[in-house]
């Protein structure tokens, strides 16, 4: 079994078999992370460049670790310390980096479509680590992995994505991936944050958070991206927290055992109350561990393609 594409640009249009292959492969890499020596020589001799045009803690460290666990050579690029500040174009930068003989490029960029653009002009395998408000496929894959780990399946489960769906690449990737694999997906948030086209993707809209808690098996709570002017879409943070914030009280009132995921970093007291966040800590940290395994799987499956 191999992936049907040379790149991972997003989950839109990725066949079910590919998603399943990545999740199954990730399950085997999960075991390596528990060993005393957390390293296998599989990608020895392969070079990976981490091209981060946007800040990141989790995703970047997760990719770096995944590369090291597979014995690949990795190089990090962050925009602040590069020639981008001297005015070099993206195309020139990538062509120069490629001339140094790299095999895989992991890219994060504030503009949607950058990974697609790179895949057209590069020979390397491109992995999207988040592009603008387009997609963040590895995050969605690790969310799906974490859900599958808890329920043993994905098909037929009810998953609700809560928060700023309109500006979230995590939401889009989750919707594409979960729909492909046969889960029922809904979204919940202020109407200003729900994109108009969402129903065309076969996604239900729920406007009441209590309803969302009652009707679903999983809530994937997004971060309110205050740095991306999220504040313009609702009257005040306090109001958002009142209407859509997940609190202990709310969970108890609806009395359901529900899996809550959060891609991090958490705005405490906004989308999750501090109490809920602390209670969830174990699950959210497990999500982070799974992230390394999922990224190892993607790197392995793309890096060993002939």
């Amino acid at each position: 079994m191999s992936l049907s594409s040379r790149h991972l640009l997003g989950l839109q249009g990725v066949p079910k078999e590919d998603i399943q292959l990545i999740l199954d492969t990730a399950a085997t890499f999960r075991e390596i992370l528990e060993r005393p020596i957390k390293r296998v020589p599989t990608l020895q001799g392969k070079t990976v460049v981490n091209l981060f045009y946007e800040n990141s803690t989790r995703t970047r460290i997760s990719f770096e670790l995944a590369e090291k666990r597979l014995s690949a050579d990795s190089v990090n690029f962050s925009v602040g310390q590069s020639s981008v500040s001297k005015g070099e174009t993206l195309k020139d930068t990538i062509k120069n980096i490629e001339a140094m003989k790299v095999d895989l490029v992991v890219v994060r960029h504030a503009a949607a479509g950058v990974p697609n653009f790179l895949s057209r002009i590069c020979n390397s395998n491109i992995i999207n680590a988040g592009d603008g408000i387009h997609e963040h496929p590895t995050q969605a894959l690790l969310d799906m992995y974490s859900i599958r780990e808890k329920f043993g399946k994905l098909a037929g489960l009810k998953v609700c994505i809560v928060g700023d769906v309109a500006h979230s690449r995590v939401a889009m990737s989750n919707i594409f991936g979960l729909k492909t694999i046969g889960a029922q997906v809904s979204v919940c948030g202020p109407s200003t944050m729900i994109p108009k086209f969402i129903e065309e993707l076969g996604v239900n809209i729920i406007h009441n958070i209590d309803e969302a808690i009652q009707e679903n098996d999983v809530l994937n709570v997004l971060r309110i991206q205050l740095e991306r002017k999220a504040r313009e879409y609702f009257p005040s943070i306090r109001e958002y927290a009142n209407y859509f914030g997940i609190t202990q009280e709310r969970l108890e009132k609806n009395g359901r055992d529900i899996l809550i995921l959060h891609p991090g970093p958490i705005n405490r007291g906004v989308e999750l109350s501090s109490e809920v966040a602390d209670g969830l800590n174990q699950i959210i940290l497990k999500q982070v561990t799974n992230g390394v395994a999922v990224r190892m799987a993607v790197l392995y499956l793309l890096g060993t393609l002939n």
Partner: protein
Amino acid sequence: MDVKAKIIDEDGLSRIITRMAHEILEKNKGSQNLVLMGMKTRGEFLARRIFESIEQIEKIELPLGVLDVTLYRDDFRTRLKQPEVSVSNITFDINDRDVVIIDDVLYTGRTVRSALNALMDFGRPRSIQLCVLVDRGHRELPIRADYIGKNIPTSNQEEIKVKMKEIDGEDAIYLMENSVKN
């Protein structure tokens, strides 16, 4: 691939396994420090048979692990098909133990090389021994087995097929020949 000969049948295989179990115990002067490590896929079942045989002889249950060496292979660049990864299952400490690696066929020795590397990542065994059901020759690395079920000299056109009840429905060893005619 056509069957050229059935070399070992069910009874034969069972005798070989009993003999190898005795040899392992004899060489290690008992079972004190032993652990068995089956190599995916058929080595896993073979290891379980040897485990059961030792259990009958010594009335002791040895630690039994499963090793998948896909990630340690050296032929990722030359293979046409991407190998599928599966899970190693080693639930015990292998530090300072005498580990017996168990596989069905010993051929080039490259799989065993991968297994040695893989085991080193799990710890530092006191010794590692190799037990194979069939040694068919054509080594490409300086590796030899400590316990051999049967030596079957082969040509490169031939292949050895070990069948085990657990996945193939029968116990047998076949000599196969490439059906391409010149």
